[in-house]
């Protein structure tokens, strides 16, 4: 974790630059614009279509995710995702399958200044993720580094039930309104594992919602979602 401290500091760095500045006495005394462009507020629901597409091309993976968010302020949304994932991890000496459900809760902040009544976003967000899953060690071959006595592969599946994982996620994404109230979103996320329950004499290699768990307890994810906004009010 310590090695990320410096990197995390970069999150708080910003640089302001101005190339033009008007002197106050040259300002034209204009009236303030009285037109306010209203945008829709409401509940946005949809699915992540990247997961079913990925499952088409990858026989070891299947997944499904529904997403939703609710606009609470001009630039602030409460966001949540819930889904199911199953993935078989093939390593040199082990083969294991993780499957289970997950939920992520958090918020998105829209950093994009829209023109007129447009409703596009470049957002950053935070999520807290939780998953409940099981992991089965399908087979493994002990790493014996000798060809004189080849190791025998153990093919008795061993399932660890009720595994849990908690993590934090930083999200960055783009969202465009393509038709009225219909949005396409592409986002990526960087995840840091906070707590994961490991099976006995094995390790949790994949957690639903988190994806592959790297040695340092970090992970990456991306999503491509189609959402529809149910407008509640305009303001």
């Amino acid at each position, binding site marked *: 974790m310590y090695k990320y401290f410096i*990197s995390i500091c970069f999150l708080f760095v*910003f640089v302001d630059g101005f190339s033009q500045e008007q002197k106050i006495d040259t300002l034209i005394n204009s009236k303030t614009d009285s037109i306010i462009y209203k945008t829709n507020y409401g509940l946005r629901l949809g699915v992540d279509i990247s997961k079913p597409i990925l499952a088409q091309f990858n026989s070891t993976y299947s997944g499904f995710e529904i997403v939703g968010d609710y606009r609470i302020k001009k630039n602030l949304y409460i966001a949540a995702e819930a889904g199911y994932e199953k993935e078989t991890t093939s390593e*040199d000496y082990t083969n294991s399958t993780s499957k289970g459900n997950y939920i992520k809760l958090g918020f998105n902040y829209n950093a994009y200044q829209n023109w007129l009544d447009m409703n596009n976003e470049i957002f950053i967000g935070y999520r807290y993720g939780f998953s409940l899953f099981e992991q089965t060690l399908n087979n493994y*071959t002990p*790493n*014996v*580094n000798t060809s004189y006595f080849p190791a025998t592969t153990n093919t008795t599946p061993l399932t660890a039930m009720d595994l849990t994982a908690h993590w934090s996620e930083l999200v960055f994404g783009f969202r465009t309104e393509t038709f009225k109230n219909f949005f396409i979103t592409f986002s990526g996320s960087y995840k840091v594992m906070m707590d994961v329950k490991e099976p006995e004499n*094995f*390790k949790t290699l994949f957690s639903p919602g988190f994806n592959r768990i790297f040695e340092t307890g970090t992970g990456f994810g991306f999503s491509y979602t189609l959402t529809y906004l149910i407008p509640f009010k305009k303001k």
Partner: protein
Amino acid sequence: MRKIMPLISFFLLINTSCEKDDFCIKNPITQSLIINFYDDSSKETLKNVKNLYVWAEGKTDSLFINQTINTITLPLNSSATETIYNFSKENVVNQFTITYNPVDEYVSRSCGYKVIFNDITFSSDNSWIIGFTPETLTTIENQDEAHVQIFH
């Protein structure tokens, strides 16, 4: 500029997290048995075995062929509880039996499982081997020093 900063900082965060769990660099994972040969008349001095052949019982290929050495490293059979080696010195065969309890222990994603040999017992039919020490060993943990000393 202010809008692009979160993007830059985000990618900085990603770039610092190079991962190194794709290759197993902790070799050897499963430990082998190291045997040193000593002179029986002066038990502190290493003594070469002349024309040494080493093969496991039931195997046709030898691990050592016609060598004159005083240290050998032997793999143990992880799928059995006993490994019988034939040590041939100047065409005299001495059988050396190692019994143990193999346990698989998880190491890491890239290295998989290692085999730990516990409760090891050695025995010999003493043709050219006069004695050995120790007779039992709780476990083989490292490759730093010899596990068995054989006197001849």
